[in-house]
């Protein structure tokens, strides 16, 4: 079967590749670009661990083909920090216990970025609705919600 040439801007860097049509965006990021921050969880579109931003909107990369990202911009969790400086959202997760095992965290961070982009001063209910596509099996979400509320305050102040 043919391989399809694609060009995707990933975390600000133009990436050219030839991929089989069936290559998932999640697998392209992890196995071709070695950006293993994005996690494969349920691989059925339920858990949200594979969430990334596509042109600024949060999507599940296990429900997308790499070819669908051709000509678009992808941001993964690796694109949040500036060098050694964590993004304020990442700092907030560390300060407020926003994770335990950490497996859902990359997806949670990307979903949270999307929430704060659309609603810079969210209510707790808005945060929870914005996380409805992401599962955490450790924390019960309390720490995650607190982290995002704290990050919202921090990001509004800066």
């Amino acid at each position, binding site marked *: *079967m*043919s391989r*399809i040439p694609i060009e995707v801007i990933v975390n600000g860097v133009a990436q050219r590749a030839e991929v*089989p*049509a*069936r290559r*998932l965006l999640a697998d392209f990021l992890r196995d071709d670009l070695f950006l293993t921050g994005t996690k494969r969880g349920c*691989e*059925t*579109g339920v858990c*949200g661990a594979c*969430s990334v931003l*596509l042109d600024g*909107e*949060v*999507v*599940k990369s*296990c*429900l*997308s*083909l790499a*070819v*669908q990202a051709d000509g678009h911009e992808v941001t993964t969790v690796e694109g949040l920090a500036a060098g050694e400086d964590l993004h304020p959202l990442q700092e907030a997760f560390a300060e407020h216990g926003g994770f335990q095992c950490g497996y859902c965290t990359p997806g949670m961070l990307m*979903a949270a970025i*999307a929430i704060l982009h659309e609603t810079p001063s969210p209510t707790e209910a808005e945060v929870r*609705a*914005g996380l*409805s*596509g*992401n*599962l955490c099996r450790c924390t019960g979400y309390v720490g995650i919600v607190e982290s995002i509320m704290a990050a919202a305050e921090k990001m509004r102040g800066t």
Partner: protein
Amino acid sequence: MRDVDYLRPETVAEASALLAELGEGGRLIAGGTALLLALRQRMVAPTHLVSLARVGGLRGITYDPRDGLRIGALTTHSALARSAVVRAHYPVLADMAGRLADPQVRNQGTLGGNLCYADPTTDPPTCLAALDARLVLGSARGDRSLPVTEFLVDYFTTALHPDEILTGIRLPPPRFDLGHHARFHRTAAEHRPLINLTLLARRDGDTVAEARLVVGATTVVPTRVAAAEAFLAGRAVTAAVAREAADIVADAVEPLSDLRGTAAFRRDMLRVMARRSIERLMPPGMEGREVA
């Protein structure tokens, strides 16, 4: 997922010709959220995916007071939910789209893809049936249009011909001033509705001048309950009226019965949903009002 070829036509006619040529081997891909699951579970195993991403004219939302609303088939659920004209003139549709599935699926999934997949357990068909939506089907042979209720035929089955593509959704100008789309989920974490119900009404003072009530997700295709609409017309909503109308709805529908919910359970939940929807739309007088 089996290996597959990927084609990117640029017009509806080109895409239609490819579908005609490929037959069973060809599958359209729009957002891909439903198709990718079906591919990976090998429920479908096409030789070619025909992408609509480069086909022009399938996006955008326009409104005209005389012609109503036109929605491109590739409009995502989140674009529908955010659209200023949809929010202004069809708030029930914007509200439904804004609560569909989860944020990621709303950003990826398209209204056209949702309709063509024809999964009974989803919200848009019920809401669109209540709003008298017509679907425009294009092919190399030309266009035709069908009411959404004729487009949806059975479980995962539509009236699309093999070479046809759903290009747009059209709604007549709104004639109801109140509306609500209700969903019942078995658990808070689940996104597939067990039952949904769209209720629209035109008000005349304290009474319902005209009502529209469609039940879905618990029937194979959306089911309009004309008996409940007729019962509500001309009546002021009281707790007793809402209860009686809800009984009519529950008795009129033959619910599915499966592992997700027995027919008896679904019928009971439908009765509760119908009563709450009617009371929510036109709150009855304070005496005897049951607060949900």
